[in-house]
């Protein structure tokens, strides 16, 4: 699972819908892998519009990556700084969580990840 996707996933438990603490999910005991993907600046700029930068910073820190700047880079920043754009591409699209779990900060539910696939099936009483 790409870090990009992690920036959009929320806890699926019904009672967590209205809780701010249910996002982002917290990766734990994860194993990461790099999987190359074609660099596409146009796609990056589109995704940038919807990134939650604060959540991405938190995720990066939790995964042990270098701290991201506090301010989200603007489209212009990135267009002028190819290196920065490529780094973001590498983080968001090429870095994968292959195993571990995602934990909800509100209810504590754990979503297991195996071979990159997160298990979001819920027992029916949590739906």
């Amino acid at each position: 699972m790409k870090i990009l996707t992690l920036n959009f996933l929320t806890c699926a438990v019904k009672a967590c819908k209205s809780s701010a603490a249910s996002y982002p999910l917290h990766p734990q005991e994860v194993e990461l892998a790099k999987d190359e993907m074609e660099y596409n600046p146009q796609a990056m700029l589109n995704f940038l519009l919807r990134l939650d930068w604060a959540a991405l910073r938190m995720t990066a820190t939790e995964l042990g990556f270098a701290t991201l700047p506090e301010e989200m880079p603007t489209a212009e920043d990135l267009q002028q700084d190819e290196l920065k754009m490529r780094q973001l591409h590498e983080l968001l699209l090429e870095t994968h969580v292959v195993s571990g779990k995602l934990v909800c900060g509100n209810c504590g539910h754990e979503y297991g990840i195996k071979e990159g696939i997160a298990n979001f099936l819920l027992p029916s009483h949590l739906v």
Partner: protein
Amino acid sequence: MSRPEDTLVADIHYNVTESRKYTTSSRIQNVQASMTLRALELLDLSGPSFILDVGCGSGLSGEILSATPPDEGGPHVWVGMDISADMLDIALERDVEGDLLYSDIGQGVPFRAGTFDAAISISAIQWLCNAESTETSPQGRLSRFFNGLYASLRRGGRAVCQFYPKNDQQKKMITQAAVKAGFGAGLLEDDPETKNVKVYLVLTVGGTAQDGNSGDITNVVNGMEGVDVLDSRRRAREKSSGRGDIKPQKGSKAWIMKKKEQMEKKGKVVKASSKYTGRKRRIQF
């Protein structure tokens, strides 16, 4: 044609044997590919997008999303949801580029608001019509799915779901669940009244003028044949938007569309917005 949907639940039907048989059949590959391309055409994406594939199975559609060339607006990045572990296994084997979630769409769509540019679903959502347990009803599952899907799409986003309704009642139940969730909805049928009929539910999420998309389903299906329109929110919007400054030429398509809108304002139900009003087409809802 046999309908596994009527007797089995999806995660049991799509076991190892069935999932492999399904994915390696060249007939199935061709049919799924052509429906995916049709859905992409209906989504009309302008650039590389973030797409949800609902009931993605072994990734037959996803491969097309990843392979869409730049001059056709791609390549797209996608996330697939599926309830069959065996289907997902085969997707892994095929080394698809999209991310996969092992999940039941009848339980909802676990993404924050405005995540996706678009959603696609090929041959999957009819499965929602059989309740998977005694604790849930098809209506409950449909509503959780469409509410979740609606929220997960950005304003101005679209979803196209090709599905195999068992009968008209099921078609109606699914469409109404989508409309109830807030979508503008249209049904498109390719090859109607043949045994190869393909039904596409085209859904829009109200956009802003800024997106160049008023969220009006008639824009989406403009120029397409056999399309019916149902939009729960249009009337309210039209009241406030004060549109209608353009005077289209009499007899033109735009004129006909305008006519329909006017009639609708008068409270008459007008559903069709196909290319030729006089054309024979199927009307659903």
